[in-house]
């Protein structure tokens, strides 16, 4: 492989590796942030479940519906729905103005017991067009579970920004790659050009052309030193030849 290709490809490999590392680390950091956001959201949902437990225990679905609609109004950008299930597994109240989607109606009633305080389920591309993180928490009256509150947090709201940042990071990496190729080409040109000129001159000397004029290399590096050495060698050889 020619030197210029070696230099360019090395450069590209380094840049691509850096870009991949950058995307992976960004995804990891943002993914962790999504988990943190879900956890925070679950805490908010748990607070709401404490607020509505009495209406659930009293089976006052009207009062419950009013609170759920007020909550949804305050969180229109982030929440797709609130749905409350009673222990029989029936929908007790919700924030839909259309029939409750089957995907939600079919949720199994879960007795949380002493397990995790909340459950998160991603619903994506459902037939009803749902794209949410469903967070469910128990509704408790004292230690007795009297219902389950499901909140659909819009995926767009939760991961929309993260996806945008990852896409931006990838785009930035691609642009960086193109820039790397350009810089590598320019560098290669400056490094390889004097070597090529020197190679041509040395080939002519090898063919017996001892009067060849060596290239005027002013790179102030090893190549310039090599050029000077060859020049001295040729001068010395020509002097010996004249003497002989």
């Amino acid at each position, binding site marked *: 492989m020619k030197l210029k290709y070696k230099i360019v490809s090395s450069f590209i490999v380094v840049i691509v590796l850096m870009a991949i590392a950058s995307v992976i680390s960004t995804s990891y950091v943002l993914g962790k942030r999504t988990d943190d956001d879900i956890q925070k959201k679950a805490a908010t949902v748990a607070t709401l479940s404490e607020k509505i437990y009495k209406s659930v225990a009293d089976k006052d679905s*009207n009062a419950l*519906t*009013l609170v759920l*609609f007020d909550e949804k*109004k305050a969180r229109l950008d982030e929440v797709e729905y609130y749905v409350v299930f009673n222990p029989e597994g029936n929908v007790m109240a919700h924030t*839909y*103005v259309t*029939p409750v989607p089957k995907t939600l109606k079919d949720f199994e009633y879960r007795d949380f017991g002493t397990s995790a305080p909340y459950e998160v389920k991603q619903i994506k591309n459902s037939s009803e067009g749902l794209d949410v993180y469903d967070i469910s928490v128990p509704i408790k009256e004292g230690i007795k579970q009297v219902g389950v509150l499901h909140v659909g947090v819009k995926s767009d709201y939760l991961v929309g920004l993260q996806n945008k940042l990852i896409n931006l990071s990838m785009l930035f990496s691609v642009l960086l790659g193109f820039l790397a190729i350009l810089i590598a080409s320019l560098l290669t040109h400056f490094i390889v050009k004097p070597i090529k000129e020197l190679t041509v001159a040395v080939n002519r000397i090898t063919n017996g052309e001892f009067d060849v004029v060596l290239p005027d290399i002013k790179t102030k590096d090893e190549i310039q030193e090599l050029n000077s050495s060859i020049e001295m060698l040729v001068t010395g050889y020509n002097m010996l030849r004249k003497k002989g």
Partner: protein
Amino acid sequence: MTSKTTKIIIATVAVLIVGVGAFLMLGNKQKVEKVAVPGVTDTEILVGSSAALSKPANGTDSSFLGTQTIHGSQAYINDINEKGGINGRKIKLISYDDQYDPAQTVGNTQKLITQDGVFTLFDYVGTPTSVKAIDLVNSAKVPLLGLFTGAEALRSPFQPYIFNVRDSYYNETEDAVAYFVDKLGFKKIAVMYQQDAFGETVLAGTQIALKKRGMEPVAIDSFIRGTLNVEKALDTIKDSEAEAVIMVGTYSPLAKFVKISNDAGFKPYFHTVSFVGSEAYAKELTQTWKVDPSQYNKIIVTQVVPSPSSEEFATVKEYQTLIKKYYPQDTFNYTALEGFVNAKVLVKALELAGKDLTRESFITALESMQNVDIGIGKMVNFSSTQHGGLRGIFFSKLSPEGNFTIFNQ
């Protein structure tokens, strides 16, 4: 058979197949669209109401307002249905009881939209109740026509799916303040209001009207909705020596306030807005609280419809005939007349929308109503940016016979 003839036959058959197919597809599409309009069939139009129809176990009774609004509307709807309906469709009104409780209004509204699948919502009663329906109405894009409230929250900001037939509380208070200040020359106006969205909107309207005249209320106090606890408010307002008190609330606490004011030697003019339910208010004043008849002419209610006993207007006479027919036990009242007027606007809009009825065509029909004579001496005007139908206030005062009668201020 020549090949030319064969080609002609094949081409004709192909054209026929495509034509019949297109016809069938179009037919099916029209059929699907027809079925897709919620609450509308070939024979029926379903409309839904939420109003106070009964007294809650704890709290004051507002059921007169709801039942009478519905009676007024139902009387006209019955008449239209008996005459064959609109384009062959009869109107069916589903009315749910909310006991003037916002939570029940929300539950009823959701049920009407999602379970009953009504074409339009109609005849909602009360401010705190109706404002809670705004978000549902907007989300579901279901029109809501005819609200027994003049609250500003249902008018501003503009609500694209809400159509108010009656005039606003702001206009009622503006005209009341104009009467007291500009006409009678009063300098001291006080406000006693119910602590909720209804009370606050009338308080705001009064303050705006007074501010226009370089004034402000000399005293303001309130009471809790659903209670008769108005004594504290009297203590505050009495000391202000107000010449008129603008009161906001339902009939029971307001009648009590008038009575205990008079008993305490405080005898200003008492005004309230149309929502009070004049007949029930008059009954409370004269029979329950036995207010001194010498003070009757200082008890004023602004109305958004003319006197229900009037012989002057065609619609009022029609109302009287139909109420006698369908609700013979009822006496004529402002609330039922307002419900009757709401139904007239509903029917007019359904007629204008035509046979291919959709919610969009119904809204367009309502918004096209300009200077429509509804038979009460005021014209109905809607537009795509203005959903307040009637403009015009009538003044009534308690007569020696114990009824609120219209007077020219």
